């Protein structure tokens, strides 16, 4: 059985909480485990936060497309934006063993998203950034 959710998000940080709720409703509908649900919500939040905060050079309103689908045990989240080209995989993996005073501030969002999903791929297509995250879930 498969099911999908297509969501339109505005480039405002206030949208994060609304997305969180919609994704949790989707997960609840499919009785996904609590931890997988949280990880899905976190990965989406981190990628969306980057897009909303850094992708746009103008102050205008932009539409970000989020596609969540579940096919058997395969969960997919795709985020599509028309902002400037940005490959999240270009962000260096932070050294999480450094002490407080040597820790750089920032750069953790993509790391979290990658660690809670099984795969994160990026492509630039027709002037859009497309991030696709996949995750195996136990059901």
């Amino acid at each position, binding site marked *: 059985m498969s099911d999908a959710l297509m969501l339109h998000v505005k480039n405002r940080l206030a949208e994060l909480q609304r997305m969180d709720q919609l994704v949790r409703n989707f997960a609840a509908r499919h009785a996904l485990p609590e*931890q997988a649900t949280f990880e899905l919500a976190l990965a989406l939040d981190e990628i969306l*936060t980057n897009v909303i905060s850094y992708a746009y050079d103008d102050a205008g309103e932009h539409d970000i497309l989020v596609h969540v689908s579940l096919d058997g045990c395969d969960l997919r989240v795709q985020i599509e934006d028309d902002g400037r080209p940005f490959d999240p995989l270009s962000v260096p993996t932070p050294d999480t063993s450094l002490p407080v*005073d040597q820790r750089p*501030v920032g750069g953790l969002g993509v790391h*979290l998203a990658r*660690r809670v999903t099984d795969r994160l791929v990026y492509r630039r297509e027709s002037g859009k950034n497309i991030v696709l995250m996949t995750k195996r879930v136990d059901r």
Partner: protein
Amino acid sequence: MDIAESKRNDTVILALAGRLDANNANVLEDKVGALLDAGEQHLVFDLARLDYISSAGLRVLLVAAKRLGAVDGQLGLAGLAPPVREVFDIAGFSSIFSIYPDVASALKQ
């Protein structure tokens, strides 16, 4: 997110509830910044009622820890729920912060 502030001796306790994300991290950042500007050197964050934290929230805690470390202050975190703990573990924050099961144990340190 709700922030409740209280004080026990020379320690300021900030109890966070709800969701800490990029949309409201600045509220906490301003609150913590004001406390540190006022000379507070001992902070305990009560996270027992915090359901969710993203990297934007971690950032605020890291900045606070750096500022407190520079003045020999102390920052303790208490009562992390499993999802919050998971984020701390992945970010490598569990080993660099003082984490306590609850506020009472944090205050004993």
